[in-house]
């Protein structure tokens, strides 16, 4: 192993932060959907992939990365609304595992459809010219695009926080995830809230996809590994807790990144070791509420 300098370590920490941000975007969507609707959305990875592919399509069509960055997540969110309304809603009241199974089947369909439309070869998504190149952070050169990803995620998280804390709809969502029966008893149409939450959650997944595309490439299987990691983040952070999703996402991103530096063979498994440890010590995850989804 080469000499471990502070610079290398710092670079690694930054890398972990970028990885963490993608996981946070995915985990928040999963956690919102799970916390409010107790739906395990197995198609979340495919929605991430859809975001990347739609991003590719839009850039080809409009020549603008910035436009695609805004529109692709919205399109994925719209798709998410349709999924909730027509596929998930009918399952309400039935076994808690039905949405899991449905979304699993949906992800098979989505991956295959994408391959039919866009072919078996992966696609290249390039960051815009303005974001190409590296920035001198003092201790190392770091790709500008990755700093951008961190920045965008922070902006989105702040917006989400404001939405949930400061708006009436946000209040209903928060109340609904804590006590859905009560909220319904108070006369709110939970169905519309669910629709909104599903839309937001899936849009976030789509955003994560288009952000990740230029870093990792766009290919039909890109959602397959990341969905498990996202689930782990949600469970570690605590189902239904957004703060938990953020903390756990960043933590796990750092764990993976730093393990890669010190013991690369174990990087993959560390995610599960962390999850097992957290669950054995704190049963509902770091910030979860006991009783939610037991």
């Amino acid at each position, binding site marked *: 192993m*080469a*000499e471990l300098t502070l610079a290398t370590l710092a*670079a690694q920490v930054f*890398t972990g932060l970028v990885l963490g941000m993608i996981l946070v975007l995915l985990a928040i969507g999963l956690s919102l959907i799970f916390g409010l609707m107790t739906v395990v959305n197995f198609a979340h990875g495919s929605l991430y992939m859809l975001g990347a592919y739609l991003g590719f399509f839009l*850039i080809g069509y409009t020549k603008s990365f910035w436009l695609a960055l805004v529109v692709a997540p919205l399109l994925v969110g719209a798709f998410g609304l349709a999924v909730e309304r027509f596929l998930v809603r009918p399952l309400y009241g039935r076994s808690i595992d039905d949405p899991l199974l449905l979304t699993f089947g949906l992800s098979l369909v989505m991956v295959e459809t994408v391959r039919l439309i866009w*072919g078996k070869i*992966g696609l290249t998504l390039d960051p815009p010219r303005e974001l190409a190149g590296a920035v001198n952070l003092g201790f190392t050169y770091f790709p500008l695009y990755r700093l951008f990803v961190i920045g965008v995620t922070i902006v989105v998280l702040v917006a989400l926080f404001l939405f949930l804390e400061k708006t009436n709809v946000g209040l209903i969502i928060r109340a609904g995830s804590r006590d859905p029966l009560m909220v319904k008893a108070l006369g709110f149409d939970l169905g519309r809230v669910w629709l909104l939450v599903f839309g937001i959650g899936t849009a976030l997944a789509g955003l994560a996809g288009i952000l990740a595309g230029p870093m990792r490439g766009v290919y039909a299987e890109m959602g397959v*590994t990341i969905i498990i990691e996202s689930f782990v983040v949600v469970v570690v952070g605590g189902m239904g807790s957004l703060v938990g999703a953020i903390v756990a996402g960043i933590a796990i991103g750092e764990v993976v990144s730093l393990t890669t530096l010190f013991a*690369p063979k174990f990087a993959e498994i560390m995610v599960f070791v962390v999850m097992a440890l957290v669950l054995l010590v704190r049963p509902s995850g770091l910030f979860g509420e006991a009783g939610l989804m037991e």
Partner: protein
Amino acid sequence: MNRRAFLATTAAGAAVAAFPTVLKAQGGDTIKIGFPGPTTGPFGALAKDQQQGAIVAMEEINATGGVLGKKVEILFRDDQLKPAVGAQRTKELIENEKCEFIVGGLAAHVQMAINEQTKKAGKLFISVSQSDEITARPDWGPLTFHEALNPTITSRAVGTWVAQNLGKKWWILYADYAWGKQNNAVLSEVLKRQGGVLLGSTPYPLGNPEFSAHLPKILAAKPEVLITMTPGADNIAFLKQAISFGMKKEMKIAQPLHWLPQLKEGGPDLYADIYAGISFSWQLEEAIPEAKNYVALYRKKHNEPPGDYGAYAYSAIHEVARGVALAKVVNSDAVASALIANPVYNHYKGKQWWRTCDHKAFQDLWIVKGRERSKMKGDWDFVDIVQKVAASEELDRSCKEKGFV
């Protein structure tokens, strides 16, 4: 990507969807060859190339009446890149479809699963992708043949050339699974023999293309050459990340193989100046008459030039036909003996031969370099052919090393 290329990709996708999977030649009495490959999954494009190459061979053979008066029929199956599925598909091809011969396999571990089944059933199997183990004991069987290159040959050829031409201070980055580890081991040994220095060797989990964790470390060590084993989508991700960290300017980058679908996907912006070995590239049509024939037939049938995996399949199907013609009977044992008794052949790139002890096909390979966009003569002209590495049994392990007396 411009609009034309974008639409072309979409059209290509639609064309791929319309591509028929089951091909049956007309007539009843045929020679059936089973062909499992990972048509679904991340290496679908390479599997497609294999299928297309096989079809070109089949049509070429059937155009002159087939073999022993029978037409050749190829039955393609999807092995999903999983050994268990590959094994099951092989069972199906043998038990249900009554195939006498199996050609196929893309992933090393799936090849070996297929091989276990063909060994059990006593059927000839010609494997068409990289694997070191399949021609060695204990995996090898008397009916096992290996048409493609293997990590030992590839890495010895590429490693030797790189050490002699690009530099002797290396860093190796490799996917932590069999293929990556094998190449890493061979390259390290080659470097030592060439008197070079290995500054570092880093494994990463296959399919997790998050390399920014490693790149600062590698940059700091200042190697002359970075050699990577990053297959499939990892390759694209790696090159993007390496370029964004400015690595192309600091060192030479090489890898054991380039794959045509990846070259197409990444384009010259990623692949320019990246060195690699390759079993076959369509540009060889200019220098080799058999290549010219194959490339022309493939282009005519499929509207695009062939990659190296398609060529392996093309050659393997022709070898089955040649074996049947020599043996004068559609029987695996007889065909295997016939091929070993007449081991020399040349279907698309020059003289090849089967080694008697392990049924390994020895063949030429080439060192290539990615071309810059401005120097490309056409859409598919991704590589510059730098040097030929002639076929040699020295490049592979000896019969003894593989466990044969």
